[in-house]
């Protein structure tokens, strides 16, 4: 199966601002496997917005606890 994971990085013309979006990752993998982008650009930790997929794994765990 083809790997659909993708990183999209957009650069502001002020020479500083960088926006990173990740697609196709589930759980913590999105931050862990794409952290090299910030490291390469020596980015300070900025404003982070998590999407539904990031919380997916956490929700699964909660469901398991309830049904067990």
């Amino acid at each position, binding site marked *: 199966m083809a790997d659909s994971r993708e990183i*999209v990085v957009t650069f502001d013309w002020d020479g500083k601002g*960088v926006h990173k979006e*990740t697609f196709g990752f589930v759980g913590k993998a999105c931050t862990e496997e794409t952290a090299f982008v*910030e490291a390469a650009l020596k980015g300070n930790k900025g404003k982070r917005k998590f999407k539904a997929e990031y919380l997916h794994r956490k929700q699964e765990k909660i469901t398991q606890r309830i049904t067990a």
Partner: protein
Amino acid sequence: MSHTLEFETTITNQEALIRALKRMGVPENLIEVHETAACLRTYHTEEYKKAHVIVRRSLENGCHWMGRHSDIGWERNEDGVFVGHIDEYDYRIGMVCDKEWQQKLYTYCNVETLKMEYERQGMEYTESLDAQKRIVLRAKFKAPVTVNRIKTHTK
């Protein structure tokens, strides 16, 4: 979509800075790289600062590159961050080294830094412009090669 992140960057990659300068149209023969910081000179050949990456003013054909009067350069500080030096006169008269020019250079520098990282990791990427004319780099992850995948292909 998993997450989005906004952050600010600093220039620490010398090769990316050189690639960005070339992308800005600086002639390759005017770019110098020095292990030890070398002197930058003004129009009157006075030394005003030192730098590791230098774009020399050109006197070919009786004119300076893009109307510039002095050398411009980037000095690597103790933290490995490149700090730009531009002669006050060039900056004041708004020649090639104005604020907008620098911002564009640093944007290209960020783009080239990330491209180099993708190339190092063997990732495929494409460059395009979005609706706001900002540069966008799209990179695809490659699935790690597992034993099961190797077996499937060798059958």
